[in-house]
């Protein structure tokens, strides 16, 4: 009886804690989205308006018509998709080689890759800026696609290698015995098994490229090549921060990613813990 009462109390405390956590996480997100519908006057209302009344789409119109946010979205999509496709193609080739072929010295290569993936971006900004300047690549899509590919490849190679490693060799043998060519074996037997790894690597690369700021700011700051984070950070003038417009643009930028992460949460979680699993 006593134990039962205690567990009820424990349960209540657990639900209370969880509710507080949910509110703490969700409230700022609500504030962002709600404020994007406030009128320019109400965005600066004191005390603040908790529910936008009247609700307006003026900020969305301003973001796209006055600030040219559509261009930034297009730039982000091109750079992010370009880098993600490259990472998946090159990462699959390397991951397959490291996971299934008898290579000597793979462990050393993998550790070097792991160390590279944790380098602070500032480490490569000065030299890359000068080199890109020298070859005339500043303010171009490739100025971001190539570094993004390089910075996200190590993680993708690790993840994909782990998946390839986990596929039983018998499956490959069976296909070979049935007379399938090596390429065909890889395409129709191995790759489908590694699909979850491709998903995880893809979502991670996509998110990392979509949110990257430092390199995008330094290599592609001209108005026609700005990505979403750079565009939003440079909205307005130093004296006036147009919060309404910023939040309208921000809502457009985070909702697709939010949905993507929500739908594919299983793979994102497995990607986040891939290191822990293998460790």
């Amino acid at each position: 009886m006593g134990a039962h009462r205690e567990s009820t109390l424990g349960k209540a405390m657990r639900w209370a804690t969880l509710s507080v956590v949910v509110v703490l996480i969700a409230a700022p997100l609500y504030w962002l989205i709600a404020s994007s519908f406030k009128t320019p006057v109400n965005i600066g209302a004191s005390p603040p308006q908790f529910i936008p009344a009247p609700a307006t789409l003026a900020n969305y119109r301003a973001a796209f018509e006055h600030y040219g946010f559509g261009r930034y979205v297009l730039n982000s999509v091109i750079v992010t998709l370009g880098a993600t496709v490259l990472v998946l193609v090159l990462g699959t080739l390397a991951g397959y080689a490291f996971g299934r072929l008898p290579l000597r010295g793979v462990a050393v290569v993998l550790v070097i890759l792991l160390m590279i993936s944790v380098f602070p971006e500032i480490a490569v900004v000065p030299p890359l800026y000068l080199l890109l300047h020298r070859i005339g690549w500043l303010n171009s899509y490739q100025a971001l696609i190539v570094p993004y590919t390089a910075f996200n490849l190590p993680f993708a190679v690790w993840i994909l290698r782990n998946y390839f490693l986990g596929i039983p060799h018998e499956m490959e043998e069976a296909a070979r015995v049935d007379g399938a060519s090596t390429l065909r074996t890889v395409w129709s037997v191995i790759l489908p098994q590694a699909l979850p790894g491709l998903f995880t690597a893809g979502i991670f690369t996509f998110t990392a490229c979509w949110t990257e700021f430092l390199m995008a700011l330094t290599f592609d700051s001209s108005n026609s090549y700005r990505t979403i984070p750079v565009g939003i950070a440079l909205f307005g003038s130093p004296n006036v921060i147009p919060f309404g417009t910023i939040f309208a643009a921000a809502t457009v930028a985070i909702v697709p990613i939010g949905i993507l992460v929500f739908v594919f949460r299983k793979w994102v979680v497995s990607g986040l813990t891939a290191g822990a699993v293998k460790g």
Partner: protein
Amino acid sequence: MVAGIALSPQARSRAAPGDERRRKLLARAGWSLSAPALIVVAAVTIFPIIFSVILSFTNVNVTGSGFSIGAMTGENYAEIFHASVWRYALVFTVVYTVVTVVIEVVLGTLLALVAARLTKGRGYFMALLLLPWSMITVISAELWGYIYQGTYGVADAIFQAVGLGHPLFLGTPTPAIISMMVADIWKTTPFVGIIVLAGLVMLPQDVFEAAQIDGASGWTTFWQITFPLLRPTLAIATLFRILQAFGLFDLPFVLTGGGPGTSTTSLALLGYKVMFEDVAFGPGAAIATTTTALVLAGCLLFLRVFRAQVGAAKEA
């Protein structure tokens, strides 16, 4: 065919020279398959980092169509080591990293412990935790800038409502640092929570059942069983966070611009300002190189400790 598989160990030892040739062939194929990835990584990270070290010892002049470098000198390092802004940025970055990572790991672990008991809706809870993580940092910085705004920010309204007066959230150094840490903790604690939660649900359940039968309290169970088993996961989460926090750039760039004064200027932000506002690439490269060296040293030190941790966990 069954016979073929059964005979294979013997067949392999008999056909050793052929197998060795096949292994070499496969190895060559393997290196060619991985070459594109390795070349891209080396070209954009390893080679530039070496180049950056060279830059940090020279006088760099940026011209219209390229750049030129002067003779080797140690002046850039002498300059930054003597600059109080650099020394402050170093201390600030280290303190910021330690404080935020400790708070995030403790809160994230608590979060995970509570959420692990969830039977229904754990997937949705995890998805909610992922939202701040997937958010563009620039956006969360703008959002917190709005929250902390001096005259109409909601934080000001809340502080007034509970009778805490009118703090200047971003206007004076110490509150600005704390406000920035809060924004960081909001965005990153859920990330730590996810990693720990995923590690937690993978632990063998029978140990916990045994502890419950033995009548161990929750506190004892955590310190005697959960924590030791969870150490590798916690180590990885901590390492991730240390490395990320040390590269701190987006948040101060947008939220405070490194101010007031230089009170929230991190090493990365200082490096950026020196390079792109003062157009001093030599000292900028020196700042970038020392930051990288510190991260690398921290990483190696941590891996050392971490390896000992894993050893301890395996023995247990």
